């Protein structure tokens, strides 16, 4: 493979990594917000959010991307391909991660919450000081797993013209009539990205275990 060909794929890698990074930053907090709003049992809102989460979870990701890019303009919301890709990735991961957050909230030990209430802590302080520090640590595994799925969803945004790793590799393969080398490179890059994530997870988990022992709220 020539250097320009490799450059093309690396440019795609930058796009993939950037899409994933931005989507992670938006989607995990959004997922938590969805879970909190649903736990709040606000009459109409809770039902709407549950329906939204079910809908996004049931929609194939490519379909969701196409929906955001082609259908939303009909509602007056026109997005460039990259922002559209970020919106689709964010919605998807927010919906899935909200289920992780939700089950964490539902199974959080009641006695700890009662202790916080009995000592005069507000709901907000209880969440910030008691609940959140425990649930993110306890659910690091499932959350990182969700993030790797996000990363592996990124090739789907090629359908709206975003050139990420897989699309770039495809282009190189089409030009050289040798698809194997570029896709090998692409695979290596995906593996490296995901290995980095999982490695990060292990490091953090080990630190948590050293400090708190087995944290199982």
């Amino acid at each position, binding site marked *: 493979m020539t250097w320009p060909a490799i450059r093309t794929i690396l440019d795609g890698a930058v796009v993939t990594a950037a899409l994933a990074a931005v989507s992670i930053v938006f989607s995990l907090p959004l997922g938590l917000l969805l879970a909190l709003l649903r736990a709040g049992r606000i009459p109409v809102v809770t039902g709407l959010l549950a329906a939204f989460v079910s809908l996004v979870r049931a929609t194939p990701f490519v379909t969701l991307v196409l929906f955001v890019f082609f259908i939303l303009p009909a509602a007056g919301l026109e997005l460039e391909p990259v922002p559209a890709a970020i919106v689709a990735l964010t919605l998807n991961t927010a919906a899935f991660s909200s289920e992780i957050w939700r089950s964490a909230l539902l199974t959080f030990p009641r*006695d700890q919450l*009662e202790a916080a209430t*009995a*000592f005069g802590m*507000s709901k907000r302080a209880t969440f910030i000081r008691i609940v959140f520090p*425990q649930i993110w640590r306890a659910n690091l595994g499932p959350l990182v797993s969700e993030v790797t799925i996000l990363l592996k969803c990124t090739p789907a945004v090629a359908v709206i013209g975003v050139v990420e790793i897989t699309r770039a590799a495809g282009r190189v393969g089409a030009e050289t009539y040798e698809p194997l080398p570029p896709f090998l490179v692409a695979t290596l890059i995906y593996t490296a990205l995901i290995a980095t994530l999982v490695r990060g997870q292990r490091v953090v988990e080990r630190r948590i275990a050293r400090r*708190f022992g087995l*944290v199982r*709220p």
Partner: protein
Amino acid sequence: MAETDAAISVRGLCKDFDGFEVLRDIDLDLAPGTTTCILGPSGSGKSTFLRCLNWLEQPSAGSIRIDGKPIGRSGDGRAAKPMARRELAATRTSIAMVFQHFALWPHLTVLGNVTEAPVQVLGRPKREAEEEGRAILARVGLTEKADVYPHTLSGGQKQRVAISRALAMRPKVILFDEPTSALDPEMVGEVLCVIRELAREGLTMVVVTHEMSFAREVADTIVFMDGGRIREVAAPTDFFTNPQSDRARRFIFRN
């Protein structure tokens, strides 16, 4: 005792869970600086009553005053309105609680557990709270455990941390909900020892317990409950030697 002089004053307290009556028409006044032990068979409503005192359970009817201030509902009788959440939280800061299963926060150190509410809720400076926290931990014999996490402690040590957490609030009243029921027999003694010490210092405490000899020795007042009602309120010597009701007699005899 006048209603306003009591540390805890309860009038006409009722509680039902989905139509099932758990507490019926309870009146009780507890003097400041006294230790009250609530005894009674399982299911008699002791714990529910205790949890009503800081409004962890919402009574169906009746009123509760802690140190003269109403909790849960402000105003009296017909005019009573549910308290705003913030006002309720502020009222709760004068009533600390020790739970059967400790309910420590596992992600905070022992000292962190003790200083959390004083700093976050009462707004005390962190350093001051930590100094006081260490002093309290020293009192319960846990000086060297201040910086470890709760999972490394034994049950008895955990409960002593929970008691320290309660003391750190400088509460008017401390409620103990079966503080030794989840402990190995060997560890019951160390926890009772701490509570006994606090009783001697004149804290106002309400202890739901099954430890009869402890109640007899430490309590100023015994409250005997059965079937969601208070059957007897008496000094320990009177209660244990000359119980007034048949039910209490059988209860003491069996234990």
